[in-house]
């Protein structure tokens, strides 16, 4: 069951990821990216990360991607035009990518102990309670600094996107 779930959602994630890269229209890329994030949320659940899976759905697939879709609609972004493609990139890009992935897979297989088998339910400390305890005791300072970061991001977004006032 674990294997089937992993394979199904891994394949969905990879296909949607390829779709993000190859589609010419940004709105199609955005919807594919939502597919990637949704399937990653299921994989997080399989790894026992309940809180992060929910946060992934709410924050990433919900808030951030809505922002993306909103900007795409606002700018009326059409399909991008292709021009001046490099011949070297066209010929070498895909083989080099596959070569890189083969090397990465080889080293991961070699250096990660293969005794670790992921069972659903074997990792129980990914609940909101445990995350909250860690966040408010050991990681309290980074958590508070994060609030300042978000405040700065809000101010920056407002300053950058406001209408220029006539002086």
């Amino acid at each position, binding site marked *: 069951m*674990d*294997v089937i779930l*992993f394979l199904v959602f*891994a394949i969905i*994630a*990879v296909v949607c*990821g390829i779709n*993000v*890269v190859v589609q010419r229209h940004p709105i199609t*890329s*955005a919807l594919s*990216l939502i597919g990637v*994030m949704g399937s*990653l949320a299921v*994989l997080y659940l399989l*790894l026992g*990360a309940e*809180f*992060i899976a929910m946060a*992934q759905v709410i*924050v*990433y697939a919900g*808030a*951030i991607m809505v*922002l*993306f879709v909103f*900007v795409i609609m*606002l*700018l009326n*972004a059409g399909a*991008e035009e292709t021009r001046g493609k490099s011949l070297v*990139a066209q010929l070498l*890009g895909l083989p080099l*990518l596959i070569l*890189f*992935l083969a090397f990465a897979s080889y080293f*991961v*297989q070699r250096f*990660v102990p293969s005794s*670790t*088998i*992921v*069972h659903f339910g074997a*990792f129980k*400390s*990914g609940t909101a309670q*445990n*995350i909250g305890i*860690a966040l408010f005791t050991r*990681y309290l300072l*980074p958590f508070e600094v*994060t609030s300042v*970061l*978000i405040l*700065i*991001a*809000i101010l*920056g*977004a407002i300053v*950058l996107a406001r209408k220029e006032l006539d002086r």
Partner: protein
Amino acid sequence: MMTGVPLSWYLILSAVLFALGVAGFLFRKNIITVFMSIELMLNAVNLSFIAFSYQLQQVNGHIFTFFVMVVAAAEAAVGLAIILSVFKNRATLNVDDVNSMKY
């Protein structure tokens, strides 16, 4: 029979998604798609964090993922504001046309 998936499969999936993100970042011309490729890379790294957190049986990787999500949200807000500002000034979304800092 209770069979599971080896942890390395998750890491390989993470590597595949990260490579796709890099490819999209390098090949795409539309600035919004480039930005979405960055989000794809961040997601791939999050999957690695969660996988290692499972292996070590610690919650620290989850905290890191949480912070990555927060930073991604802030980055999306500011980055999309910059894209709006660029589009307002240049009337283009092609990254090749945005090659000077001012005027």
